[in-house]
């Protein structure tokens, strides 16, 4: 057992830290306030390979491993959780299923430009009446002989509107139920009958785009079926197993970011004639935060390492996400408290970080869903 990062992973952290501090941090507060999707940052991430970290070079990626990918999302989220989730949703939820289930033609056509970051990706599973109960899909796909026809709507889709390629789940045979009745499709922006609906106004990650996807007699070419007919639920669940590593890394980054700015604040803020860093109650609070952050980090890197080694990592990525999300809420709430009144204002980044942290307990499976995944591994389904 070796808990040291490899040379590659250390360099990835060094590179992404520098990129994040220089390119992302200076605009993080503004894009949050303006609810503005940072398209310029997406272009920069593409140029430096940040949008295809764990995808092999032969398919346009950086050829990295999943720990390097987790470090990438962590370091971006340390300064801006919105930017972190743009990278995570694109990589985990669109590039990965194309890599795992795509035909060679689909990989050449879709995965290569996505891994290079020339195109942005998204994933559509959630519906108004199919959230945690993801199997209750109402979006229908009908085989029309020479094409598929999709009808229905998806909600809360990260990168919606800005993505060029969407992996969309739809019911192809309701009689077969969740397992066997759902199929996955590759839908391009601009396909006839596909449009973007409502854009959500959110509590946090305000610079990321979250929209509705609307399908009205949407024409999808036959060759855009991903995997086999009826494999959709399996594709979605295995995609989310990996996606949880990305969201856990986002939560970890938010926690680390809040921790780091609080350390700086405690050294400079003076009350009762001494800096906050000299008060033992606050020191102990920071010790507790750091311990939880390190525990979350180890859970995440372990799940990522298991994924790289083709081990059954699903319950482990669920544990990583559950714990990292709770840690993000714990640390950011304390960080605001330690900043006092200033922490409640938008002049300090902890206010944004606390709002951003909450979603990590909800999307890509709520904390309750993670407990379902973990307990199913203990007791069976």
């Amino acid at each position: 057992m070796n808990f040291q990062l490899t040379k590659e992973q250390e360099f990835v952290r060094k590179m992404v830290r520098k990129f994040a501090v220089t390119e992302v941090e200076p605009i993080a507060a503004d894009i949050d306030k303006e609810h503005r999707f940072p398209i310029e940052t997406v272009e920069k991430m593409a140029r430096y390979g940040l949008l295809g970290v764990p995808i092999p070079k032969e398919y346009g990626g950086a050829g990295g491993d999943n720990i390097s990918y987790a470090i990438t999302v962590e370091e971006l989220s340390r300064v801006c959780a919105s930017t972190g989730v743009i990278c995570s949703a694109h990589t985990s939820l669109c590039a990965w299923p194309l890599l795992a289930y795509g035909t060679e033609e689909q990989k050449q056509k879709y995965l290569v430009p996505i891994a290079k970051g020339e195109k942005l990706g998204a994933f559509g599973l959630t519906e108004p009446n199919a959230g945690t109960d993801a199997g209750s899909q109402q979006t229908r796909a009908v085989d029309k002989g020479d094409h598929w026809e999709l009808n229905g709507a998806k909600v809360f889709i990260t990168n919606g509107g800005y993505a060029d390629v969407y992996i969309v789940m739809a019911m192809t045979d309701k009689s077969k139920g969740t397992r066997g009745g759902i199929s996955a499709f590759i839908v391009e922006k601009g396909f006839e009958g596909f449009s973007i609906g409502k854009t959500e106004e959110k509590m946090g990650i305000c610079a990321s785009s979250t929209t509705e996807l609307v399908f009205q007699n949407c024409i999808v070419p036959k060759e855009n079926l991903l995997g086999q007919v009826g494999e959709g639920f399996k594709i979605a669940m295995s995609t989310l197993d990996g996606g949880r590593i990305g969201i856990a890394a986002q939560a970890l980054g938010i926690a680390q970011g809040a921790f780091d700015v609080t350390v700086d604040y405690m050294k400079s803020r003076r009350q009762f004639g001494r800096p906050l860093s000299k008060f033992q109650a606050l020191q102990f609070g920071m010790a507790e935060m750091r311990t939880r952050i390190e525990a979350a980090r180890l859970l995440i890197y372990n799940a990522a390492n298991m994924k790289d080694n083709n081990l059954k990592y699903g319950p482990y990525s669920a544990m990583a996400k559950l714990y990292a999300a709770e840690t993000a809420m714990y640390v950011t709430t304390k960080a605001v408290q330690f900043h006092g009144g200033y922490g409640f204002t938008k002049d300090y980044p902890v206010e944004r970080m606390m709002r951003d942290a909450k979603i990590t307990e909800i999307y890509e499976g709520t904390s309750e869903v993670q407990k379902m995944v973990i307990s199913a591994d203990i007791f069976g389904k």
Partner: protein
Amino acid sequence: MALKIIVCAKQVPDTNEVKIDPVKNTLIREGVPSILNHDDANALEEALKIKDQYPDTHITVITMGPPQAKDLLIECLAMGADKGILISDRALGGSDTWATSNALAAAVKKIGDFDIIFAGRQAIDGDTAQVGPQLAEKLGIPQVTYVKEFSMDGKEITVKRALEDGYEVIKLQMPCMLTAIKELNTPRYMTIGGIYDAVKADIPVWGAKELEVDLNKVGLDASPTNVFRSFTPAPKGKGVMIERDTVEETAKALLEMLQEKYIIA
């Protein structure tokens, strides 16, 4: 056009993290992260910009330092350089600028043909700005220091050389040596894919033997420089402030002062 470019780079302690020992008045280097010297990153960036334009261009980065200086070469390769060579040998340890430029000149000769050598103006640890110029002298090639703008037309190079209060425009032919300042460009980052290639890359290590360098010209004993004391130089004065009762009088006073110094006729 397929140019051969050599970039000289140095691994230095991150001065943002350096503390001064209050008793000994020396730098405390323990636990301080090492970084690619800032001006050297500008030197490499200019070479990479040429490679962007002429993809057949080959960039070799050389650095002299302890074995861990290999990390600097990994960083340069991950930014886009083609080859890294580490010059490292106990016999070279403690070299001052004169001895260092002897070793670097031997390395450049061993590499063979080149069109341009880019180096940073100076390293943030030693701040001498001597190694680049000494290297050019020892190779017998033209040099321009403090380059803030670079352009190329065939094999003719035009640069702007920064002065304290302006710049010079200089044309020169290859092969030549140029030292970069931060105004020259904004260095790019490493790429993630580049990192994965760079860590696996073969980075040769050349010692005194491989360089075939005279041992009387390298290392601590051969170095003519002795450092007696490190100190922070006094900041430059504020300059002369001219204040008169009216704008006209102030302008007149300024005019007279400039005429006195023959800056204007």
